[in-house]
């Protein structure tokens, strides 16, 4: 076991564990935000740089600090390592800059975005109070496209975390969408008009940290915070059948996989459960979802909430006087 201390909190982890995983084990506000890493997707992480932390002591054997900030999601723990996240002004300053970078080309269209209220980027920018007015040039723009009957791609919002690409690579057979072009012209696309049809393809919607991939059957029907998340299951021959239903009264607006406190799905679900079972009779409803980190505008404050305390994130944002 390796010992690691993050912002003064210590824990022991197995060899090969990353700093981020160790932080998640400790929990609370010292957990760095992760926009691209996804524990269920092999090879993910390292790209967004929001999880950068400072290693003030490399290890017991080699106590020198690391010269640069490191991506906590992809840096393995060494025995005796000491890490600063929220106790390092440098880390917080850099994180603010990273969020600014992520936002300069991001349309600030939260009021019309389906992801509003459960968007990691919205949470992050709120937490770090970033003012984007330093960027005065034009934002890049793409057309919205439908990739198949069920999924809408709004490329303007994409932060190129590559999660959706890893998802189709790892849980479906055959990939028809990917990352095209390069630099800030990179885009997620199918290149030629093509539909993602694989049985598990709908999971790309759940892994997307922003509103770039959304469920077409849900669009504009309701804002997230007007629906109530309910855990439910059904006997599904293709997947575990364990889902969250987003309901208003007795209507099912949307079906998603169940997400944990870090906004990661617990188990991937099949397209049939996600897109086709929209009647309450299709499901055995277990009760309200208890872990709803998505309803909190804060990446650093993961808490288990009791159902009913859903806050309207946009309203809160507006209340905050702009400096």
């Amino acid at each position, binding site marked *: 076991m390796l010992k690691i201390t993050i912002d003064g909190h210590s824990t022991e982890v197995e060899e090969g564990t990353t700093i981020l995983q160790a932080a998640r084990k400790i929990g609370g506000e010292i957990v760095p935000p992760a926009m691209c890493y996804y524990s269920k997707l092999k090879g993910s992480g390292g*790209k967004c740089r929001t999880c950068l932390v400072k290693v003030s002591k490399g290890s017991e054997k080699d106590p020198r600090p690391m010269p640069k900030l490191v991506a906590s999601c992809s840096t393995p723990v060494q025995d005796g390592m000491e890490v600063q996240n929220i106790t390092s002004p440098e880390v917080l300053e850099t994180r603010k800059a990273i969020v600014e970078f992520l936002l300069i080309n991001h349309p600030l269209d939260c009021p019309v975005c389906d992801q509003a209220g459960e968007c990691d980027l919205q949470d992050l920018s709120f937490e770090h109070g970033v003012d984007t007015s330093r960027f005065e040039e034009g934002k890049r723009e793409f057309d919205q496209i439908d990739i198949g009957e069920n999924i809408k791609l709004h490329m303007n919002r994409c932060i190129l975390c590559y999660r959706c690409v890893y998802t189709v690579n790892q849980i479906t057979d055959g990939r028809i969408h990917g990352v095209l072009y390069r*630099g800030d012209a990179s885009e997620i696309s199918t290149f030629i008009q093509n539909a993602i049809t694989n049985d598990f393809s709908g999971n790309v919607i759940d892994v997307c940290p922003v509103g770039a991939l959304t469920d077409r059957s849900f669009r504009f029907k309701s804002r997230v915070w007007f629906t109530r998340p309910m855990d439910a299951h059904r006997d599904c021959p293709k997947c575990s059948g364990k889902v969250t239903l987003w309901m208003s009264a007795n209507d099912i607006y949307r079906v998603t996989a169940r997400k944990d406190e870090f906004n990661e799905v617990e188990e991937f679900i099949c397209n049939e459960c996600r897109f086709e079972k929209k009647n309450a009779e299709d499901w055995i409803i277990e009760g309200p979802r208890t872990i709803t980190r998505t309803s909190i505008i804060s990446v650093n404050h993961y808490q288990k909430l009791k159902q009913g305390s859903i806050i309207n994130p946009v309203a809160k944002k507006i209340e905050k006087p702009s400096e």
Partner: protein
Amino acid sequence: MGRKILLDKVHIPGISTFKVYRDNGGYTTAEKALKTMLPAEITEEVKKSGLRGRGGAGFPTGMKWSFLDTRSNNPRYLVCNADESEPGTFKDRYLIDNIPHLLIEGLIISSFALGANTTFIYVRGEFKPQIGILNRAIREAYENGFLGKNILGTTYSLDIYVQSGAGAYICGEETALLESLEGKRGNPRLKPPFPAVKGLYDCPTVVNNVETLATVVPIISMGGDEYAKIGVGRSTGTKLMSACGHIKNPGVYEIELGLSMEEFLYSNEYCGGIANDKKLKAVIPGGSSVPILPAHLVTLTAQNTSRSISYESLSDGGFQSGSMLGSGGFIVFDEDACIVRNTWNFSRFYHHESCGQCSPCREGTGWLEKVLHRIENGEGRMKDIDLLDSVAKKIEGNTICPLGDAAAWPVNSAIRHFRHEFEFHIEHPDIVKNIKHGSLEKYRTKNTKPRTKNTEITESL
């Protein structure tokens, strides 16, 4: 000074062919290495030589080799980095054009030392003539028993293949290069794991620059200790400098490390001074990625000591008043050159070449370019200068690969040393809009003495 060990034979007619190269002592070092030395002995000599990577980072080559994971049962690979795309650098092209067998010989010795039986030369896609030259040289080496099965009757076998890139500066970064070699987009990998442990096809791999690998030949030929006597301090040996810009004699020069900047820039043996006898404004000494040096810091350091071409002397003063040797791309600006325009030009380059994987570089390089473009076109505001500086500093050090740093440093250093030019652009939009930059007219009058005739060499193929 002036000792040549890489380019000492380039003047011999036909040296690019196997026969002439062999007749002039070529491949005797490979024979010696394969027949009389153990792989570990070769690595030891390279270590003793103090050779540092010539691709830009200057990492000690012997040390890099000794990191190669030899416990794994996987095959090991050597990959030669011939992606040469750093603006200002054209030495690898020169070496391949003129004396390709030196590289092949270096590859044979190095592959043997590393226990690699397959070696790739990754050549940038634009170097089509060079791909042809290398393939011809490799074919000749096979025909003469220096490649293939049981080389020179030993138990050692080696295949060398040329792989072509297709237009992407980032593929010069070693892990992006490996991705590209695997047929993928050139996205740099996260490190660790380093290529020495998990490189090409997840096997232990060493990536070295063309010049580095060619230098292995004279090192093994004369011995590491002897090589270490050349040069100065920890900058041992010779270095190929690619000199370009507003100088009288642009071209590739082999210099002994420690040569003074004064001599390199002004003597007729090398750059020959500033074209048209203009005054010097600035020099970028190691390729577009390294900080720019204003005239007063070119031949002297901030402490008024003489500056020479070595890893240490060029970085004397850190980023405040120094720069880096980098890849040895020596770009000279005369008094009429516009630093703002050039900074914008380089920013456009990095913006265009970012792979787009990580957010600071993907978004930041575009931002820098846009702001610089505005200033350069007379539409800037005073606060833009600090904005540029701050954006560049937020990119630096926060990215997956060093391209982010490479995009940031030119901007930071240009602002540090030439802030007045930025201010001038902002204060005088009318003047700025009408400047004609780097016009051909002006350049035509200059007395250029080309040191190579690429076209002739490649047309003789």
